[in-house]
């Protein structure tokens, strides 16, 4: 039997890939999610419909289907290989050269981000609609423009309020990224599967994988609770 010890580099680089996908998708989803929430909440009839349509499609179809669709796009659109065959190779901490980015990984991260944006948008929209209408009137009454009211009154409060619910997305997302395994992105689960295939230590390896995800998620939860306690509005 081969020990799993010699596969640590694979697991480490798989974990790094998972964290990369996670952070990219989380922050893309955060930025886009805020924009979607604002446009769905405050937009005119057309803007509201566009963002509602996007949110409902992303939430209403399987993430795997979205990833498959987006990653085959270059082939479906017959984009010449010279645009899609690039890759960035960086040696990992053990000196082994690893592909850290190519078209597929990028598209996969994009799909995760777009999907996450739809869910995050709904958390933010929920928080936006929970604000009292009175503060909006007050902001208008001192002559604030709609833009100022959103920027200085609605967003600072609703982003804070959204944190407990939003933390759901922040802890789901690292787990969801394992779907990228199916399209061949060398992330954590695919590294684990590789190690299982080489060593037949399925129980041990998947157990370690699960524990690492658990530790990661607990850490994110703890971090977000800290942030929430620090920036919450006193007395509310």
């Amino acid at each position: 039997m081969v020990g799993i010890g010699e596969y640590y580099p694979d697991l480490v680089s798989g974990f790094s890939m998972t964290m990369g996908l996670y952070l990219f998708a989380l922050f893309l989803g955060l930025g886009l999610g805020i924009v979607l929430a604002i446009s769905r909440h405050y937009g005119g009839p057309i803007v509201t419909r566009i963002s509602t349509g996007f949110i409902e499609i992303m939430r209403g179809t399987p993430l795997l289907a979205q990833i498959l669709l987006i990653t085959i796009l270059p082939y479906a659109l017959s984009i010449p290989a010279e645009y899609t065959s690039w890759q960035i190779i960086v040696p990992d901490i053990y000196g082994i050269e690893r592909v850290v980015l190519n078209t597929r990984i990028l598209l996969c991260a994009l799909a995760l981000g777009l999907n996450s944006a739809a869910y995050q948008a709904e958390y933010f929209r929920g928080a936006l609609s929970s604000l009292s209408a009175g503060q909006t009137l007050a902001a208008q009454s001192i002559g604030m423009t709609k833009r100022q009211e959103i920027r200085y009154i609605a967003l600072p409060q609703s982003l804070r309020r959204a944190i407990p619910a939003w933390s759901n997305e922040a802890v789901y997302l690292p787990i969801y990224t394992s779907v990228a395994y199916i399209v061949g992105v060398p992330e954590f689960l695919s590294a684990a599967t590789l190690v299982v295939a080489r060593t037949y230590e399925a129980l041990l390896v998947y157990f370690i994988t699960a524990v690492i995800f658990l530790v990661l998620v607990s850490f994110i939860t703890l971090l977000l609770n800290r942030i929430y306690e620090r920036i919450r509005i006193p007395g509310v």
Partner: protein
Amino acid sequence: MVAVLEVRDIWKAYDTLEVLKGISFDVQKGEVKVIFGPSGSGKSTLLRVINMLTPPDKGEVFLCGQSLMDSKADLCKLRTRIGFVFQNFNLFAHLKAIDNVSIGPRLVLGMTKEEANDAAHRALEKVHMSNWSHHYPAQLSGGQQQRVGIARSIAMNPEVILFDEPTSALDPELIGEVLQVMLDLAQEGTTMVVVTHEMGFARAVSSEMIFMDKGVVVEKGTPQHFFQDAQSERAKHFLRKLEVLYGQSETEKT
């Protein structure tokens, strides 16, 4: 001299419910107008129409001769000159008292941070809230919140302040501190339009009282007029009800 506010023939309906049916009045500089009447008579809607928080179906409002309904007018600019104090205070929950007051001068009037803070400190001093400037709204009592609300409007240095039942959401023992601030403002010559049932306040400082019922102005007059010989049955009836509610002293003092 041109009136600070001219309200001309305001009509407003929500679906089939007619809330305002042709309201007109003027407010001169330094005047304190008290609007009162039974609930559902359209008083709050009227105040909101004045600074276009609720646009009317028909009619016009002029601030110092300038129409707020003019499509070329910068509504946000005009609103900075009309203060508004809400029944439920509506302070910005995420800002300390001082920031609640300084945010308008800073963002809307374009003052620097220091100027805006100075203006906010002066305003808070006027409402006796200087010692509470670093508290958040949720850490203040209703009366304190309302005084910060008043400071928020006076920091904008408006031509007129509209008060929408400023003491109705307060516990009885907190009403006094808010009324005192409003009396001080009135005595300094602040132009005010006040929707209230505080007849003691009306008697002390109002230059004219307007009795509204079912969307129309039923009767106008000085406090003396209302407390000594109100003409309309509806006004008399309503004042009697207030007496029962708040005790006789208000009318017997005259």
